[in-house]
């Protein structure tokens, strides 16, 4: 039978996605109302971190891996430090552990505020950028900049500088702040806490596209804390594993359209990491004000609409500020800035919650402390398949939109994930299936 004549396909092509970190593209093709192609492409050139980490000293990993991402360097420093400490059989606890949480609070605040207001909110309000948005909403943008600055200031005081902090060391820090150093941050953080609560209301009130997805949420879970540095890896569909079991349950796949390996559960499906996942898996561990802000904003304990990730990011910002204030309030400078970490041959795993989601590192080191193998799995690489399935669903639900509006909606949908493409590309490896 001759096939019916095909009509011209409708193609939406974005060669260079804006308001994301790094170089990505998007392409969708629809023919006669049927979706033929959905692609979230990553063309950021690879930088081969895992390859050149081999032969480096184990204590160099926090500074070197920080250079994978200028937006979430603390996450790389934390995952690598924990992995190396595990390999060496060392645990960092007490005030040093609290200081690491505090540093992470600073990164969450600056990164979340950057994304919520500078990169994502303009999508909801129809502006090309936060700078365009500032023409009509100057106060809001100024409030966001002030909050972002406070998060950066926290990272700066504790880490030395906001981008690629210099103070993180295996076993703790090079030097620790005095109580007075941290107290000097309190007043501004208290202002920020109120501003953050207000911003939850603001973003919850934005015109939000409606869509419900059936996500498998993967994040850390800790018995008593909303997770930063520690916990088991759990999913909303029943996964519950030690971080050292990562390669038994997850796999990475290399496809042509992407210089970043895609993450899959070995049991089959795509999964979702990031604020929505942490929130769903740890809702009851949020601080009281953060939970109240979520309740007031009318979002339940599980959010399945990816366009509401902006609200959850704002809720997590409230949490990070409250947590920072709690840690500062109880802080007494520890007697030593770090505990000794002596290398021994072995394997270490580190899994921590970067602002964009679970960041897994695995290293093998030899008895001299030289790195033999390195594996780094960043959140955006893991989210790639989910980003594509969201694109498909959003496309299906919005085919009636004009090309311009549809493109806008699809870009917004990618930005729901705050993708960090610089991260995603720099960490890939050959041994996809270590099974």
């Amino acid at each position, binding site marked *: 039978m001759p096939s019916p004549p095909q009509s011209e396909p409708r193609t939406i092509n974005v060669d*260079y*996605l*804006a*308001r994301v*970190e*790094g*170089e990505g593209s998007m392409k969708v093709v629809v023919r006669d109302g049927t979706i033929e192609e959905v692609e979230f492409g990553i063309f*950021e*050139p*690879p*930088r*081969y*971190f*895992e*390859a*050149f980490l081999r032969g480096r*000293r184990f204590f*160099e990993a926090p*500074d*070197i891996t920080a*250079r*994978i*991402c*200028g*937006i979430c*360097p603390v996450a790389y420093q934390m995952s690598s430090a924990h992995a190396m400490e595990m390999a060496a059989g060392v645990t960092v606890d007490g005030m040093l552990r609290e200081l690491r949480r505090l540093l992470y609070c600073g990164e969450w605040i600056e990164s979340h505020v*950057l994304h919520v207001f*500078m990169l994502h909110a*303009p999508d909801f309000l129809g502006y*090309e*950028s936060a*700078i*365009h948005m*500032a023409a009509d909403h*100057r106060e809001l*943008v*100024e409030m966001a*900049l002030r909050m*972002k600055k406070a998060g*950066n200031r926290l990272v700066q005081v504790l880490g*030395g*500088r906001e*981008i*690629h902090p*210099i*103070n993180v*060391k295996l076993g703790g820090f*090079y*030097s620790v702040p005095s109580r007075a150093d941290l107290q000097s941050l309190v007043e501004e953080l208290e202002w920020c806490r109120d501003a953050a609560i207000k911003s939850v209301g603001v973003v919850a009130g934005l015109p939000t596209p409606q869509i419900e997805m059936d996500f498998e949420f993967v994040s850390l879970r800790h018995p008593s804390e909303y997770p930063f540095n520690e916990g088991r890896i759990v999913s909303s569909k029943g996964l519950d594993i030690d971080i050292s079991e990562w390669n038994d349950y997850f796999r990475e796949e*290399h*496809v*042509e359209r992407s*210089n970043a*390996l895609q993450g899959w559960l070995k049991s089959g499906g795509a999964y979702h990491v990031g604020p929505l996942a942490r929130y769903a898996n740890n809702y009851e561990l949020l601080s009281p004000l953060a939970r109240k802000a979520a309740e007031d904003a009318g979002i339940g304990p599980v959010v399945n609409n990816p366009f509401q990730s902006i609200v959850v990011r704002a809720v997590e910002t409230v949490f990070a500020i409250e947590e920072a204030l709690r840690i500062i309030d109880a802080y007494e400078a520890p007697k030593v800035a770090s505990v000794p970490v002596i290398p021994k041959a072995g394997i270490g795993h580190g899994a921590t919650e970067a602002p964009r989601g679970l960041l897994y590192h695995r290293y093998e080191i030899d008895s001299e402390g030289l790195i033999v193998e390195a594996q780094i799995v960043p959140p955006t690489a893991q989210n790639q398949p989910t980003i594509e399935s969201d694109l498909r669903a959003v496309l299906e639900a919005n085919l009636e939109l004009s090309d311009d509006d549809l493109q806008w909606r699809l*870009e917004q949908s990618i930005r729901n994930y705050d993708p*960090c493409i*610089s991260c995603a590309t720099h960490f*890939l*490896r*050959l041994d996809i299936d270590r099974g």
Partner: protein
Amino acid sequence: MSDKPRLAVFKFASCDGCQLSLLDAEDHLLAVAEAVEIANFAEASRDITPGPYDVSLVEGSITTPHDAERIREVRRDSKFLVTIGACATAGGIQALRNWKDVRDFTSYVYANPQYIETLSTSTPVKNHVEVDFELRGCPISKEQLIEVVSALLHGRRPNIPSFSVCVECKRRGTPCVMVAQGIPCLGPITQAGCNGLCPAYERGCFGCFGPMESVNAASLTGKWMEMGVKSSDVVRALRTYNAYAEPFREASDAIAATE
């Protein structure tokens, strides 16, 4: 189109940290946006307009055939081209591939190396096109960034110091970590710009701002070895974010050759 000077920001192989410095200049951002037209800054805005640009800030090193082409276009479109950071100015940490066989790197990292298009080296922008000003640092200093942009817009020479990190320690009143605590430090051969950051945190400088112009690294590395640092560790210390910058490269190659 307004008659304000047009600013563009371009990314090559990098971590985005240097361009983020612009968004991290919270106190200046809105003022900058009023003084210039942000004509092309994909990380911040969808509103991307074609050149020519008055000032282009270029982050990242050149690692692919496509990027080697693209940097020429950027040059053609730009009145002033400023490289921002160690990647663009010296090749960045990814220049460690320059000492290795990149095919091994690709197949270590990727299952299907044939999908990856890459050059065998990571090189600074100046190896490809003429550069009007270079900002050092991994990451750059945002104060220096604001200084360079405003100097260029006002037609004056940017005021960026070229002395060593040691001078910053003295100004800051930090006791020398090498003398006082025996901590190996790259400060004597590293260009200022961080305000003597690491020594103030009781750690040796690790060279984020790269080598000072025409510095003799050998006397410092000799001192390190007298302090008991293994030669392989001296090589590692010189081969980080500015590994491929001339004085660091020569010094590390010279030591590696004796190993």
